[in-house]
């Protein structure tokens, strides 16, 4: 992943002449990481693509208010997470399903972007039953092997709460898999 000089980017963002170019660099550097973070929540390529575009449009509109209080990726991640949750709520309203974290489990079978065997499909079905935030924490810890401190900086939750959340997620997944055996 390409590195970005945040101080330099911040300066260029404030200059109307260089603002667009600086933002293009941000999109180029962070879009791949953000894509997967959004995918953890919405678990579908087309939806992830929509949410990712909305995230960058929101970020562009709010760019003048970003003063560098947090890292650029943290700022983008929080916009992306909120957009993902908004998307899930809209999807829930459209499908009139009560559970806002509902993800159609059978969709993994037909998903051309799914690249796993039956066991991984079962795991993803179990992951899809978790609430959105817990799903994020589980995926970052389990699939990315991120440290709790890193996740804490990103999601703004204490390390203790994250450990508890991950532990509960593992228990839920275990119970789900047992029920399918």
């Amino acid at each position, binding site marked *: 992943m390409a590195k970005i000089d945040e101080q330099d980017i911040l300066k260029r963002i404030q200059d109307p002449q260089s603002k667009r170019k600086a933002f293009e660099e941000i999109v180029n550097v962070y879009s791949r990481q953000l*894509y997967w973070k959004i995918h953890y929540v919405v678990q579908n390529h087309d939806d992830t693509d929509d949410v*990712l575009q909305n995230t960058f449009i929101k970020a562009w509109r709010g760019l003048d208010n970003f003063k560098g209080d947090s890292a650029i990726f943290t700022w983008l991640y929080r916009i992306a997470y909120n957009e993902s949750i908004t998307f899930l709520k809209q999807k829930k309203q459209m499908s009139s399903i009560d559970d806002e974290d509902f993800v159609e489990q059978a969709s993994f079978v037909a998903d051309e972007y799914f*690249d796993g065997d039956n066991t*991984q499909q079962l*795991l993803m079905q179990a992951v899809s039953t978790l609430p959105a935030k817990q799903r994020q924490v589980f995926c970052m810890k389990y699939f990315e092997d991120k440290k709790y401190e890193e996740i804490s900086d990103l999601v703004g939750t204490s390390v203790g709460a994250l450990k508890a959340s991950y532990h509960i997620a593992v228990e839920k997944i275990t119970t789900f898999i047992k029920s399918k055996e």
Partner: protein
Amino acid sequence: MSTKNNRILAPEGGRYPFKVSDEYFDNLTARIMEQIDSVEQEVPAKVEEAPAQSAKLFSIHKNRRRNLWFSTISIAASLVLIVTVALKFIPTPSSTPVEQQKAETTVQYTPDNYNEDLMNYTMVDNVDVYYYLASEGDFEE
């Protein structure tokens, strides 16, 4: 945990079982910047539309306010006219309050003329009155 669970939830973590082509990411930045440019073009157009809309709203409010004034003035003028006409037709009391009270008493307790007028007006005669009083039990034959 069963063997299957141990295999699924490996302690070292696992691979996220989804893939996206590199081509998608190659074109992504360009697509997003295009989207942003089109959004930027939409915003000034909306800003230009805004004054026309507010002028229309202002015009609607102005007309409503003017209509309200006309209605209020019309109602007030009508009331003044009605009161003026009514005052002309109501006889002014010429007697003292004591005489006025006596006159009222006279009107109230002089049955002949008053009752006749009333019976003509209501189209009843003495027989009807008699039967009515009899049926109410106030009058015995």
